[in-house]
């Protein structure tokens, strides 16, 4: 398998941003009230992701390390603006349906995360495929959740209604339904022990960001770095202390045994 197909598979299956990494939860919850909106949001994000990955990869040797995050944000914001203008011109309906969530793609952690962890370290073509894979993975996730909610809530798939209106559970297209569908999804992942960001024990930290490192772009964690390092050092010290104590105990026990043996003689 060459790098390109590997990147695509990685984005769509191995590290699927919606199901495995649990990234970009705001759009996942907000726009999946119908399959069409989910698909539209996914494809819009894919376009931004591919373009920003390509551009950041081209600029990776030019951008100074210290200001890379602001530089990435500017690049991403520029592409989001371009895509938003294109949508306003050619896909008015989708633009109206997604509303404020289009400009909010800028703060979607998937995009900054890919820029930081892949595009800024790799050549252009693999970065493009990385963006494409991640974007398609996100699209698949949003569309599937959208289909679930649309079937349950308005008895339709992509606007094609096949369940009579008496059997619609409107709850699922409203805000609370989004949370409940996601809750069931994560519970299912827990039950089947699937690889997922919500299954790792790291999520149980007392840190300000919740210690969920899978959701972190590294942009916001400067303050936490000290805490993590201190925690690790403390852990190491505790382990060393324990080992020392155990060794001392073992030694004492051995000596006692030896003394006993001596006495016995």
């Amino acid at each position, binding site marked *: 398998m060459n790098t390109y197909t590997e990147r695509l598979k990685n984005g769509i299956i191995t590290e699927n941003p919606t199901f495995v990494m*649990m990234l970009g*939860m*705001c*759009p996942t*919850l*907000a726009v999946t009230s119908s399959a069409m909106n989910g698909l539209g949001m996914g494809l819009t994000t894919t376009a931004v992701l591919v373009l920003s990955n390509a551009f950041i990869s081209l600029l990776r040797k030019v951008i100074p390390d210290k200001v890379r995050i*602001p530089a990435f*944000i*500017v690049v991403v*914001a*520029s592409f*989001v*603006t371009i895509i*938003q*203008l294109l949508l306003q011109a050619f896909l008015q309906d989708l633009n109206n349906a997604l509303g*404020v969530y289009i*400009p*909010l793609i*800028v*703060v*979607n*952690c998937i995009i*900054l995360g890919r820029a930081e962890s892949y595009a800024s370290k790799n050549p252009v073509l693999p970065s493009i495929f990385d963006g494409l894979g991640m974007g398609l993975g996100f699209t698949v996730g949003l569309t599937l959740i959208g289909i679930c909610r649309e079937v349950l809530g308005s008895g339709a798939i992509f606007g094609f209604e096949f369940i009579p209106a008496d059997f619609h559970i409107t709850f699922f297209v*409203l*805000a*609370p*339904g*989004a*949370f*409940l569908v*996601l*809750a*069931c999804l*994560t*519970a*299912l992942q*827990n*039950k089947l022990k699937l690889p997922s960001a*919500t*299954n790792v024990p790291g*999520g*149980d930290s*007392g840190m*300000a*960001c*919740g210690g*969920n490192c899978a*959701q972190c*772009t590294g*942009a*916001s*964690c*400067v*303050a*936490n770095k000290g805490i993590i390092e201190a925690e690790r050092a403390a852990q190491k010290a505790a382990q060393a202390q324990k080992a020392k104590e155990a060794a001392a105990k073992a030694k004492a026990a051995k000596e006692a045994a030896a003394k006993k043996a001596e006495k016995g003689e």
Partner: protein
Amino acid sequence: MNIFVIMISSMLVSNVVLSQFLGICPFLGVSKKVETAAGMGAAVTFVITIASAITYPIYYFILKPLKLEYLETIAFILIIAALVQFVEMVLKKFMPPLYEALGVFLPLITTNCAVLGVAINNITNGLGFIESVLTGLFTALGFLVAIVILASIREHIEFNDIPESFKGTPIVLVTASLMAIAFCGFAGLV
């Protein structure tokens, strides 16, 4: 629009987390303990209020006269990022106790979509300066209320007997769903 209507509508009826889905990451991530949740909520309130106050003149006195309205997204995200840094520095220098309380949360806020969302919504809805600031303030207070309620529920959940597969994130999402149902009840108020 009077203050009371803005307060009810942006704090309760269209709650920023539970009906607009902005700022979900901190809502789920930082709601383990009531104290940290309150700290995060206070920091968000602080930043959103200042951000709504600053983005208004930037849009109407700089971008609009120069016909650069389409640069709104880029301009706002940069302003917010700079603002968070600036607020952090000012607090560190002049109000150390407040910095102690909010400091850890400030860098996390740059990527909080609620801040950008509120700023963009204010412009899209064509609100005036005072309305913008009040909307920002009350939206953020809505966030504070939601995250503190979730955190206090989560503290109680700790001692409950939950089905094995619902432990961790799923039960938090179920809680959020129930809270969202409760907040739907405010819909008829305005």
